[in-house]
Every structure is written in C-alpha cells, then in structure tokens.
C-alpha cells in the first residue's frame, strides 16, 4: 500500500489492489428482522421471542460466515505442500534457544511500567466518576409535623424539602397523604409520591386545593393543603393518569405511583424511604400494595419486562 502511495504511476501488485470487500449478502436483513421479532416477542409473546432468537442465531451465524469467508480462505488448499515444508523450516529455526535481547526487555519493561502508572492514575479516577451508580442511595427522614394536621379520610397535599443540604428549591418534593385512621390497632396512612412513574414529571392532584397551612418542623417549612373531592392524579408532561390509589388509568406510565414508608414519632408524621409499587388492589387501609425497591421512573418492576432492569443485588 505504501508503495502505491509513493509511486502512483506504477502498476499495482495484483492481489494488493483487490478491494477488501465482503461479497454482497442478504443475511443482515434477515438478522435485523430476527432482532425486531425478538424484541417485539419479549413484550407480546414468549413464543415469538423464541422464534426471533432462533432467527438471530441462524442468520447471525450465516452473516459472520459470509463476512469472514475471505479471511478464512487464507490457508487455501493449494499451498498445503509448501506450507508443511515451511513450517518444518520454521520449527528447525526455533530449535535454537530463545533469546531475549536486552533491548526487548527494556522495551517491554518500559511499556509495562507505563501501563502500570497509567492504570494507577486512571482506574481510581474512573471509579470516582461512576461510583454513584454502584453505591446505596440514602434517603433521609422528613418530618411533616403533627398528625392533627391530617384529618381522617381527607387528602392532604404536602410540599417539603427532601434534602436540606441542597440549596434553593432543588430538593422540593410533593406527596399526597390520606389518613386512613386506625386499622387493626395500627395507624394507616396512604402516602403517594407525586413523581410520575413514566418520566418523573410532577403529577397534579385532581381536586380542590384549600388554603396552604405552613408548618415549621425539624425538616424545615412544610406546606400542607387539604385537597377536596380528589379524583386521581394526572401528569402535565405526557398525559399519564392515575386513580386515587396511584394505579395507572391512562397514558404511558408502566406502573403505579411510588409511595413512602412512614412512622409516627412524638405525634408527628415522619416520611421514611420511598418505594416503588407494581399495582394496588383495594383501597385505603385494606389496600394490598405490591411493593418493590425504589426504581427510576419508567422502569418496569413487574411483568416480563422487569428482566431488563435487574436489581443491584449487592445493595441491601
């Protein structure tokens, strides 16, 4: 190739001048079709997915075989005889004791030490960069003030700072809270996060918001608005809609709205960790909640698609 560049006028050597192109092949199309079928099948039907997987394997194999034909043909059957004799010659030459000249040793050791230093510098830096993806994310408790502000069987829209270390309103969050009274001797609360389960926009309550009631607590100012005649929640971004228990009724969300754990401390309602919900059966205190570890909006927690979002098992 270099020769050809330097002396463009000369006749190129015949095998060098051949374009290194794979022969035209139809297999990639069939392969792509298989991939599409596999993905559609994962959503619709496992049998379709299996057929797609078989197509992918078969046509992927055929495609690779076609594309590598030129490479694999290098040990052509014509050159069998001389190749054997050449091999023999090479082996004879290698009979000599192997020699490691000092220059080779220095070359290798320089490269090795360079790689080592590079690794020592780079690996911790990269680890520092991607660490947030691998460690447990902690959620602090939020004090929402006296339980008396949450009348029984009324909805209250509460706005609070989830993390007071963040400046401004960056950590402002909203939850929809209903006091279900006491069930089996235990206080029952329905506490639904307003983060839409589709893409994380703030859902809005479909009800009449009363005058705000600002309460000072250990977690800063909490704004409580009694919400009358609630009929579900809707999201302004892409039109996701939920019923009063947070179950999806329309739009793109893939699961129900997230909820908060809670505890009652010295007469105050305290929010705990948020968790994700597949769906809710029943209502209020008798509701059966399919709870999962908190997942990002849009991630499936149940159904066949959950295989795409495996839990980080090293986090308790």
């Amino acid at each position, binding site marked *: *190739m270099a020769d*050809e*560049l330097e002396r*463009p*006028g*000369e*006749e*190129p050597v015949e095998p060098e*001048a051949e*374009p*290194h*192109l794979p022969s035209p092949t139809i297999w990639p199309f069939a392969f792509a079709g298989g991939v599409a079928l596999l993905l559609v099948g994962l959503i619709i039907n496992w049998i379709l997915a299996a057929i797609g997987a078989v197509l992918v394997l078969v046509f992927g194999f055929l495609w690779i075989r076609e594309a590598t034909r030129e490479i694999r043909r290098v040990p052509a059957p014509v050159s069998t005889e001389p190749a054997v004799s050449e091999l023999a010659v090479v082996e004879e030459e290698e009979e000599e004791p192997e020699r490691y000249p000092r220059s080779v040793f220095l070359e290798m050791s320089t490269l090795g030490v360079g790689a080592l230093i590079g690794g020592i510098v780079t690996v911790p830096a990269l680890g520092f*960069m*991607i660490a*947030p*993806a*691998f460690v447990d*994310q902690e*959620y602090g408790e939020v004090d929402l003030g006296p339980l008396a502000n949450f009348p029984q069987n009324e909805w209250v829209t509460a706005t609070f700072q*989830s*993390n007071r270390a*963040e*400046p*401004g309103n*960056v*950590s402002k969050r909203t939850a929809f809270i209903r006091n279900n009274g006491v069930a089996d001797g235990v206080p029952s609360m329905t506490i639904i996060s307003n983060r839409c389960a589709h*893409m*994380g*926009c703030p859902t809005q309550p479909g009800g009449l918001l009363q005058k705000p009631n600002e309460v000072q607590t250990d977690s800063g100012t909490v704004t409580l608005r009694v919400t009358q005649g609630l009929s579900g929640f809707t999201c302004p*971004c892409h039109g996701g809609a939920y019923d009063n228990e947070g179950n999806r009724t329309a739009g793109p969300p893939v699961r129900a709205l997230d909820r908060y754990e809670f505890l009652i401390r010295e007469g105050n309602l305290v929010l705990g960790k948020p968790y994700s919900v597949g769906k809710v059966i029943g209502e209020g205190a008798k509701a059966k909640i399919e709870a999962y570890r*908190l*997942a*990002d*909006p*849009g*991630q499936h927690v149940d159904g066949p698609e959950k295989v*795409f*979002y*495996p839990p*980080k098992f090293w986090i308790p």
Partner: protein
Amino acid sequence: MARQRKSKRRQQLEAMVLAPIDWLEERSGLVGAVKYFLFRRVPAESNWFHTLGSATLTAFLVQLVTGVILAMYYKPDPESAYSSIQTITNDLTLGWLVRGMHRWGASVFIILLFLHMGRVFLFGAYKYPRELNWLVGVILLTLALAEGLTGYLLPWDQTAYWATVVAININANAPIVGPFLGDFLRGGAEIGGDTLARFYSLHMLVIPGGLIGLITLHLYLVIRLGVTEPPWTRAAAGYEFVEDGRGPVRRGLVEPRPRGNGSIGTPVRDEVRP
C-alpha cells in the same frame, strides 16, 4: 511564459517578508504540512455539497470559542447558575450575543452534522475504503447530541430542570445498563447540585475533548483517502479518461476509489471500451 523580471528592490522586499516563513519551514516543516492539507487534489466535479463538512467544523469551532468565553462568567452551582446566566444575558457587554451564538449555534451545528451525513450517504462516500471514517462520524454525531443534552441543563431554569429529569429517565430506561446510567448521570438518586456540576464537567471538558480527538482522526482519514467524486460523474461510474485519444475507459464497478492525496490517477486495468 513571459514572466516579468522583478526589480532588485522587489526581490529584497519579498525575501524580507518570506524570511520568517522560511525560518519556520526549515525548522518544523509546518508550512509544507499546512500546504499539503489545504491544497489537496479534489475531483473536478466537486461542488457546494462538499463544503458541508468544513461548515460543520466551523460551527464546532464557533461553539468552542463562545463556550470558552461563557465559561468565564458561568457559575455551575444551583444557587447562582440561573442568576449568572441572567447576568451574561442582560448585564455584560455583548453577553447576549455570545450566549445567543452558543445557544443557536448548537442547533446549527447539529443541523449541519445531519446535512453532512446526508451528503456522505447520498454520494456513497461511506463505501470502501472510507467505512472507518463513517464510523468515526457516527461517534462524532452521538457526542454532539450528548453535548446538546448536557448543555441544556446549564441555564438551570424550569425548562432545563424538567427536560433533564425526563432525559435522564429516558437514559435510565435502557435495558440492563439503564439503572446504572441514570445514577451515573444524576451523580446520585436525585437531580441536584451534583448533577449540575457533573453535566458542566461533561459538557465543557469530557465530551469536547473526545470531539476534538475524533475530528482530528476524521480529518486525517479525509486527507489520506481523498474526496469522493459525486455519483453522477463518469469517474464515480468507473470511467477514466486516458491519454491515447480513444476516449473513456471503463474500470470495474467494484474497483476502489484511488487512495492517496487526491482522487484521480490510478492506473487503468481491465480495459473495457463502452
């Protein structure tokens, strides 16, 4: 060839002007390198569509320069990000212009990228031996889109915040890697000051570094492989004009475009007269 003889005085003047350039060339060879880069042979029928690549490069350079200026005034923390943008736009002399160039230039950059990609596709310029340059271009396209994504958060207003919430959650929906990608982009479980700092660093250090490196590789490959003829030319169809006066000679259709600095002049083989 009637060249006018230059006067002695003029020769002296020229020598004086050229002296620094000669000095540089003798010690570095840089002048020759720049000439080699700028005065390449291109196909006779190259046209305005061939300028889309350099137009994209120009748009990128505009982003680079205006971005560096903006970085001198922008403060990437949640308390002051929004107000620093307000200061740049309303108070600083010509701040509105620099920010406007960066804001709208971003769209120009992306649009030109796609037009350039369309030109390369329609002219068949991605074919052997230029497949690698197409692949480099695809990576450049994704990096440019990532620049758009990370830059969008920096004004730190309601649009920026919620658009980024949605954009990060779209990333977090990728199969298998999604949950990791989401936490990596946010720098934690929730969007906050860490996210802003992270996006700022990605936007002005990490991704531009990658872009500059890959653009260099892209240009190197363009210089090495030369420019493709437009598909309607005889050369692209495999014809070559030969000196013996018998008219064009057709080469094999799968014959590669000649490599090297320029795109004409490979020897003719397998002569087939049309």
